[in-house]
């Protein structure tokens, strides 16, 4: 019971007044970043019953007569149909990793991920985009249905606060379910430490193949990179329970650091080569710095 209370207290502290002010500030900053640029709305290539003229095409049997351009018919006696660009809502999916490995760190990596997701969701809601939160670990763990408008931010907060600890990370299995359930394409922001024993590449490829515009935000703890370990220890994997006896020496630590660095760089390479945006941040860094980096990278705020 005490633990639950402590968790509850921690979560209420997660999205406090200060956090709200901070994301509001980020929203304003996001607006400034795009001042002077032509603010194109997101339009689908789908031509349908919008209000802005797009093109003509030949009439075919069965087309709606109301869209015939009679002026053109009067001048050229050709039946041409007026086409309009249809405006669509942008869907932003936040895929938040809630696996056991995300519970580690101080503050927890999951808490950091929640803050990042909440901040980006606020920006999205403010832009009248549809924001959907999809937590995952070995599978999808619930879903916040797509919402729009600033007023929905508290729903987002509540949903994020209630996210529970998951199990093992199996990104591919989870994303397979995700793409099956969400046919509307959009931006998929994957917030995770990407510590998946099965690998992350197949899962990310799945998003790419399904035409999701993918953002990868890798969260790690500095202590993972520089663990203060010494001597004879037994390493226990927090997700798989796998054990490894090891005698930690400075040399071994150096090698481990290189391996961790290599892991992160491999992920970055993978994302860049596949035209996915990639961001990496330690939990020790302020989350708003990360948000600004995302803005500057462009794409997220059109």
């Amino acid at each position, binding site marked *: 019971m005490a633990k639950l209370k402590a968790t509850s207290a921690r979560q209420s502290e997660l999205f406090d007044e200060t956090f709200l002010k901070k994301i509001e500030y980020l929203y304003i900053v996001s607006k400034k970043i795009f001042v002077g640029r032509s603010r194109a709305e997101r339009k689908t290539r789908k031509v349908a019953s919008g209000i802005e003229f797009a093109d003509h095409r030949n009439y075919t049997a069965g087309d709606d007569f109301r869209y015939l351009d009679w002026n053109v018919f009067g001048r050229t006696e050709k039946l041409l149909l007026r086409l309009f660009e249809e405006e669509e809502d942008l869907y932003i999916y936040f895929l938040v990793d809630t696996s056991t*490995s995300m519970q*580690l760190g101080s503050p927890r990596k999951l808490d950091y991920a929640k803050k990042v997701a909440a901040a980006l969701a606020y920006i999205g809601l403010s832009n009248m985009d549809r924001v959907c939160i999809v937590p995952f670990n070995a599978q999808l763990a619930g879903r916040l249905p797509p919402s729009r408008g600033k007023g929905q931010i508290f729903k987002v907060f509540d949903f994020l606060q209630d996210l529970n600890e998951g199990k093992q990370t199996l990104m591919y299995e989870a994303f397979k379910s995700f793409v099956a359930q969400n046919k509307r394409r959009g931006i998929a922001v994957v917030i995770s*430490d990407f*510590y998946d*024993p099965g690998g992350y590449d197949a899962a990310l490829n799945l998003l790419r193949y399904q035409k999701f515009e993918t953002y990868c935000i890798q969260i790690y*703890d500095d202590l*993972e990179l520089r*663990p203060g*370990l*010494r*001597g*004879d*220890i*037994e*390493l*226990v*994997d*927090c*997700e*798989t329970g*796998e054990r*490894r*006896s*090891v*005698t*930690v*020496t*400075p*040399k*071994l630590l150096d*090698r*481990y650091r290189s*391996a*961790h660095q290599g*892991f992160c760089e491999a992920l970055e390479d993978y994302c860049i080569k596949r035209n996915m945006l990639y961001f990496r941040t330690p939990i020790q860094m302020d989350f708003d710095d990360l948000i600004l980096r995302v803005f500057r990278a462009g794409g997220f705020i059109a």
Partner: protein
Amino acid sequence: MKFMGIGLQSAMMIAGGFALGLLILYVLKLRRRRITVPFTPLWSRVLIDKDASSWFQRLKRLLSLLLWVLVTLLIVLAMADPQPEQELERGTNTVLVIDTSASMATREPLEGNRTRLAVAVGKATEFVDAMSPHDKVMLLAVDGQVRSLTGDFTDDVAVLHEALESLQPSATEARMLEALRTAVDSLTDRKRPQILLFSDGAHSELARIVDAGEGAAPSTTEGEVNARVGAEPTIEYVLPDKLIRDEIQFDHEVVGSESGNIAISGFNIRRYLSNKLDYEVYVQVRNFFNRPVFAELTLYNLIPDESTATGFFYKIIEKRTLELGPGSSELRFYKNLALASDHLAAKVELKTPGLADALDLDNEAFVLVPKFKQARILAITPGNLFLEAALLLNRNFEVDVMTPDDPFLHPGGSEELRVTNLNKTPYDVVIFDNSFWDEDTPPISPAIEVPGNFLYINPKGAASPFQVSNIDEPIIERIDRKHPIARWLVLKDLNLVRGSKIRTQSGDRVVVRSVDGPLVVARREAGSNLVAIGFSIVESDLVFRVALPVMLINTVDWFLDESNSLIQAYRTGQNWHVPVPVGLGAINIKNPHGAIDKNLPTHEGKAVYYGAYTGFYALSPAEEFAGMEGVPEQWEIAANFSSARESDITPASKPIPSHEAVAVGEKPTEEKDPQLEQWSWVFNHTDYDIWLYCVFAVLGLLLLEWFTYHRRWTV
């Protein structure tokens, strides 16, 4: 190289044990610290290379093991305290003998009114403080016992200080010769031995004045030789021969100065023969001043009173002022004293202005008067007025007289008398005068208890425990004066018409013997006390002599274990053989200072106890015997210090002679040994022992191990 700490065998066993333990600990898989990590595959990638070098890791762990084995061996070596033999020869081995006898409690006005013992301890402390690190000392305290307060020789100054501070004077004499013998024995095979004796020198046990006129024939007994100093009078010192032959350096530091003392040198009490309710007290006071003094002698009863701090109310019986000549004694008798309690004490105080009594220990004496009980006696006689008269003479006897055919003595006897007697305590003594029974009809009475006390006068009959054969006109040949029955007994020219020769058995004591055989015999048998007089008193002229009541009183006293002789307290400084109730296996003794010695075993009805303090000692059965039938909850004994030798506190005029005197605290000059010189870089410039180097080495190795461990060289 010698090992002065634990023995080599023990050291090897400990080292082996530790090495084995370490080996087991290293062989056993260590329980590793568990660390939770988010992603072990990252570590797995790293450890692929690590496994390849595991043999090297094992070797490094082996190095760590060897390091710890080395540390263990060094620790054990330090415990063994190795000393090069040359090193051992450098220091002195000294036995400090400190006199803690009663005379050492004398206060010294010139030393700030400190006791002589305090002065001696101060000087001994100076010596200890001046010791070099190579010197070793054993401390012997000598009073009525010789005790080593340090166990063995030690160079630990703190231990010696503690032992010196614990010394207290006791109310005993000093067994100086035994102390010196112990010191000599302790110094056997030790290099540079010396004995330092701190004493006031008032021990005539060592010094004897030899009559100059007769000459002084030197006597040698049990390896002791005599040394003589002085011409008039010749003083003969009895010392262990090693001291005389100068094999052991001996120095005597005389403590104390001229001072005076008065003492109670004797304190006894006895009952009157005819009236045991009254007592006669004898007190002797001695003046050890070399001038006349006045002293006040107080005799008082100590009546138990819980409301007072001491537990006693002091009821003064009499105070007297005595005038004592120089070195003289004064005897005082207190006659016909009826005492209010069984605790009696005498105290003497100096009343001469300007003089001080330097020793208090001998100013008070105590005695405990045994409780008195009137004896109930049953005389079974066909009719003997002489016997009845002799018994009735004594007020301490309650006498019943019956004839042998009294129904009370037989089955189905007088019911009235039986009931009367049943309400009384059993008879203490039963006298069979010329009475005999056939084997089939022994006397039976509820008032006669077996075991008990029985006096057979002219015993006869098959049931009699004494078998006799008749003799005519026996002539008394010898009386055993040491037996209590024969005390003050005069049987010279006793005329006997006829008598009986008593057949004795093993354990019988013949008190009176005639030419023809034993005439009076005492026997202790199966808890009973039996006395047989082998003649009829009416057929002798004993009935006209005072010897008859005396013999009867003596016999009854012997039966009841009551003595008319002097009632004396135990003497301090001796092993006391304290009688205890029959069957009591162990007792507790609480001394006058409140300290309790528990579970002292008893042997043949006596407990052996060494008492060092004057006053009353409380005895009680040990816990496992508490509540035992016939054993009182508590009883007491008294102890006195009465030693003219110790009360004479005049210190020795000069030390006991020694061939080579060494001033206190001064160390002998060390001779340089060429063999030792080669080790000088180790020993001469430092005062450290090898064990200390071992400890330094251990610390160094630990530092190395710590460094290599934290640098991850040995993990």
